[in-house]
């Protein structure tokens, strides 16, 4: 069995960054990618706004990917395309399949840069017919931007996440009519800038507290039934209205893709749907690390690549240093938080906490608390569920922490 110092699973913006950084630290790795190209989802995200933090300029998705891929190639890092990992085992053996056959390799360390999947009609159980023309927003994006096929002429989009909003503009520019966007929540789930330049610019209506309650059309989608929802997100009887469309796009969320992670018995976080991690982005199996959208869903790619950099350093430390016993602190958030990561941190290492909140908040303070001692208070004019927030916790503060660290929102 061939063995590697480090195997990186996934060749998108997280995995590529990790591989590049590892090579710079003189660690050779093997990168395994299931598609026939590197760069992941960025290749189909042709809009711009990527790279402001990492490259200090505004790039399109494909340009951002090309920067990473060029750097990766120039470093001569080993990689396999069209290779899907089918089993990840506790002993850090990996089985993958590609056109050449089935392979089993041994890794000393592993980086999970697995990316995410889109939630589908099945996940949200929309009743009705099963005609052609029902797509996840990301598939429709790939067809349009990479293959040149437009999924419909009269399109409705369910979900106001960023991919849905970006696709509303994209379809409009491709001369399809975007009839509207519905969002079940009373607020939009996308970045505000995308609401402005993707919907308002083209007068595309956004229906808040509204969802699709039926899809009609046996051969091809013919119409959809929309209903208003109450505060419990249940459709309100007699609020239905019918809209004629020939395609429906679903932009109803991303789920970290962790089938192989769960199979390996790695402990998961039911909120992020990614693995639980410590401050080194190490999972419950020592030597297996996670980053990017496979860990938790990001809205800015620069932070995905940054996690790849952080994980590379952790892999380097794991491979080269004798492990010291960390002074562990558990991290949590109050009821306002969907999640806070890392789940466990080391008292002796400065850390950046990342979190998402449940509902939009204005003019609040985020407080960092340990026991009954307040360590830090940060005023925030606006926090949105659509945007991941970060707080840097300096080492000097961490040393005052007793056993746990808690984030609280103060109105």
């Amino acid at each position: 069995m061939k063995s590697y110092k480090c195997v990186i699973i996934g060749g998108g913006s997280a995995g590529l960054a990790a591989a590049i950084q590892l090579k710079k630290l003189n660690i050779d790795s093997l990168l395994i990618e299931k598609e026939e190209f590197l760069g992941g989802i960025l290749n189909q995200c042709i809009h711009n706004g990527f790279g402001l933090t990492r490259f200090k300029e505004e790039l399109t998705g494909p340009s951002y990917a090309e920067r990473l891929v060029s750097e990766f190639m120039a470093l001569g890092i080993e990689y396999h395309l069209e290779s899907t990992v089918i089993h990840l085992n506790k002993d850090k053996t990996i089985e993958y399949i590609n056109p050449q056959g089935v392979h089993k390799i041994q890794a000393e360390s592993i980086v999970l840069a697995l990316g995410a999947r889109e939630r589908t009609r099945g996940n949200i159980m929309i009743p009705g017919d099963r005609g052609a023309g029902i797509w996840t927003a990301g598939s429709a994006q790939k067809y349009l931007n990479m293959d040149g096929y437009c999924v419909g002429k009269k399109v409705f989009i369910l979900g106001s996440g960023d991919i849905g909003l970006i696709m509303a503009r994209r379809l409009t520019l491709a001369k399809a009519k975007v009839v509207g966007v519905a969002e079940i929540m009373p607020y939009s789930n996308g970045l505000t800038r995308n609401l402005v330049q993707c919907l308002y610019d083209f007068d595309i209506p956004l229906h808040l507290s509204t969802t699709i309650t039926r899809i009609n059309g046996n051969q091809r989608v013919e119409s959809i039934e929309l209903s208003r929802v109450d505060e419990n997100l249940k459709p309100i009887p007699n609020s239905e209205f019918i809209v004629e469309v020939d395609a429906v796009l679903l932009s109803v969320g991303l789920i970290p893709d962790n089938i192989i992670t769960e199979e390996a018995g790695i402990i998961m976080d039911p909120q992020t749907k990614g693995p639980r991690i410590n401050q080194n982005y190490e999972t419950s199996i020592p030597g297996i690390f996670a980053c990017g959208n496979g860990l938790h869903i990001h809205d800015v790619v620069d932070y995905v690549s940054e996690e790849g950099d952080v994980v590379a350093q952790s892999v380097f430390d794991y491979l080269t240093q004798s492990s010291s016993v960390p002074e562990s602190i558990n991290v949590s958030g109050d009821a306002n938080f969907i999640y806070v990561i890392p789940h466990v941190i080391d008292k002796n290492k400065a850390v950046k906490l990342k979190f998402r909140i449940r509902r939009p908040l204005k003019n609040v303070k985020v407080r960092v608390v340990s026991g009954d001692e307040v360590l830090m208070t940060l005023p925030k004019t606006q926090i949105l569920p659509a945007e991941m927030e970060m707080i840097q916790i300096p080492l000097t503060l961490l040393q005052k922490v007793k056993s746990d660290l808690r984030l609280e929102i103060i109105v």
Partner: protein
Amino acid sequence: MKHELTCIVCPRGCLIQLVKEGDQYICSGNQCKRGEVYAIQEVTEPRRMLTTTVRIEGSKLKRLPVVTSKAILKEDVFKMIDILEKIVLYAPVQVNDVIVSNILDSGIDIIASRSIKKDA
């Protein structure tokens, strides 16, 4: 005149207040200078970056993603789309190649936003 607008320059999306006093604009809420530039531009002469694709032949990929070299006038968006729809390119293309120069006499170029190799 008072305007409240969300900055679209970067994903941070600052909420900007813009007040016109005489000939002067007073800008607040922006976290960087680009926000002020955007806000004044938006209320006087709105501009957008345009990204779309053009047809390409001789490669596995069927579309080449392109981007404007600078923000274009909002009213020119569909005029440029009409021009770009008619273009057929042949691989190979290098990232940052100029696909259309000085489109609509705007002084702005249409640029390839990735490289595409020629496939046999």
